[in-house]
């Protein structure tokens, strides 16, 4: 029973090869563009996320600076606290070692490392430069931010071995013409002055970072602030899956009793831009696939009109509405399948070729990725669209009244 339906469908496909080819071509192009654009988007997304992970931990735990609050609540409409300010003593984390131990034991947490950030001045003869000095544990920070990958000179290793070592951004190195081995005088906000030795220069191709960031040892940072080794401003946490960070952050915040900010929140503007890009590409690629669907729809509509006599005969011989639907939907799905398979092949080819194109600079190779999910999505979506594009004309065919055709 279904055998004869598909036999009829295949006969129509075979005797109308040109139409079949044109319709399949439409799906092929729609498919290829859909997968290609989405793979490209995934590639760009990954590139942009990777560059974020070079400077942001997945989750940053810190003591949010709050405006001082009066201890007693006012009952007479009078301000008890005049001119409230941020209290600096508040921005440290109490008992950081215990907290870090606790964090390390959480599941989904892969790296936990302390950090002390401060603004300092680099003094070099007449010139003075404001720099954000980040005190880190070199080995752990290296694991987290892969600083070595962006080192243009020197080695991360040397920071570990030299308490007075400093790794500076390439912009700072240019402005103060600092080279490896040069000494630089650093002045902290607590008026501590200390000489550091440049052991490395990094370049992230992120102007803000390159022009104003420097890594020093955690202990040196604490000493610049005249603090002991329990003084920690941030605890940086990496999770096993970066995209779960936004769900894990609130848990860690509750656990630690401090603010825990995930990287997506910390980089809101970048994320918003990437979201926009995602929306546009999804919209455009989906539209293209739908247009391809219209191609099949048109061609099937044409086939149905051409075959209206056949449909009337089949119905006269006892074919039911659903048999007629099956005949034309089968035809659409076969065309769709041909288009989808070839479209996937073309997409694979395009992704493969572009992956080998070297753009240079910060980007390196063209950022495009095989995203199996996007392929599956494209295939499912392509088949659903061909099904619909076939179903609508098929339903029309199923409703043909044979008598009205025979009377003509």
């Amino acid at each position, binding site marked *: 029973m279904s055998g004869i339906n598909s*036999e009829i469908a295949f*006969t*129509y496909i075979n005797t109308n090869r040109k139409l079949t080819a044109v319709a399949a071509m439409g799906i092929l192009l729609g498919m290829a563009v859909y997968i290609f654009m989405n793979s490209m988007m995934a590639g760009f997304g990954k590139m942009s996320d990777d560059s974020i992970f070079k400077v942001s931990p997945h989750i940053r735990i810190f003591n949010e600076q709050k405006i001082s609050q009066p201890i007693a609540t006012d009952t007479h409409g009078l301000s008890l606290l005049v001119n409230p300010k941020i209290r600096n003593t508040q921005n440290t984390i109490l008992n950081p070692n215990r907290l870090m131990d606790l964090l390390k034991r959480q599941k989904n947490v892969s790296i936990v490392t302390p950090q002390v950030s401060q603004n300092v001045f680099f003094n070099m003869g007449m010139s003075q430069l404001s720099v954000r000095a980040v005190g880190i544990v070199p080995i752990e920070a290296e694991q987290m931010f892969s600083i070595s990958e962006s080192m243009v000179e020197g080695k991360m290793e040397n920071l570990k071995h030299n308490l007075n070592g400093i790794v500076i951004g390439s912009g700072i190195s240019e402005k103060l013409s600092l080279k490896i081995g040069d000494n630089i005088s650093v002045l902290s906000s607590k008026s501590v002055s200390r000489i550091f030795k440049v052991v490395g220069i990094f370049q992230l191709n992120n102007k803000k970072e390159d022009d104003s960031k420097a890594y020093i040892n955690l202990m040196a940072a604490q000493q610049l602030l005249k603090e002991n080794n329990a003084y920690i401003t941030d605890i940086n946490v990496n999770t096993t899956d970066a995209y779960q960070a936004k769900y894990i952050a609130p848990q860690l915040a509750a656990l630690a009793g401090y603010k825990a900010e995930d990287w997506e929140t910390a980089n809101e503007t970048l994320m918003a831009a990437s979201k926009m890009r995602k929306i546009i590409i999804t919209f455009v690629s989906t539209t293209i696939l739908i247009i391809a669907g219209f191609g099949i729809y048109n061609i099937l509509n044409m086939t149905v009109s051409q075959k209206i006599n056949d449909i009337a005969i089949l119905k006269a*011989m*006892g*074919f*039911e*509405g659903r048999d007629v639907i099956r005949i034309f939907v089968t035809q659409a799905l076969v065309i769709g399948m041909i288009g989808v398979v070839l479209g996937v092949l073309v997409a694979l080819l395009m992704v493969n070729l572009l992956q080998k194109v070297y753009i240079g600079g910060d980007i390196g190779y063209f950022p495009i990725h095989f995203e199996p999910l996007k392929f599956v999505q494209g295939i499912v979506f392509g088949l659903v669209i061909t099904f619909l594009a076939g179903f609508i004309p098929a339903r029309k065919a199923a409703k043909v009244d044979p*008598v009205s055709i*025979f009377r003509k």
Partner: protein
Amino acid sequence: METALKTENIEKYFYDPVRFQVLHHVGFEVRKGEFLTMAGKSGCGKSTLLYILSTMDTDYSGKLYIDDQLATGKTLDELARIRNEKIGFVFQFHYLLQEFSCLKNVMIPALRLGKRSVEEIEHKAYQKLEMLGMKEQALKPANKLSGGQQQRVAIARALINDPLIIMGDEPTGNLDSKNTQIVFDIFQELARTNNQTIVAVTHDNDFAKKSDRTIEMLDGRIIN
């Protein structure tokens, strides 16, 4: 006496371009194994009546029984099944699926019914084609045949499921006298030995006279 087909008080109107009654009070009975012909001048409503009898046209009032079952009011799918199993139809103008071979055309109703294996059906289709002298052309595509040849293939197709009733709208309209005689003999044979029922519209007086009974129509009424 068993009835193959019965109508009660069938009336049909066309509304386009003006309201116009094509069939008036049509009621008759055809018994199993009967070879019935219908005659009447052009435009008197023979085809219209035949479409109703074939269950394809459901837009009428009155009642239609096929094989003692009320067909009136059944769903389109139920009617399709009745047609597939019990009715073989030969159209006024030969209507074959043009892109299929003669053999496939004959086989399609049986493949749809699905009661026999493909080999059996093919064997049977060859038999029917042979009866009508079309065996040699079996593998030719339908669109490469003459009108008369197509009509004979259409007759073979109407016979493939051994239907209870074979309906024909001028089934021999395109045939020469020799082939008309062959078709007549086949119909008579089917009625006599297989107890199958034939309802055929014809303009051929000879053909009508030789049949078991002739119903004559005039302006949508049965007059005889």
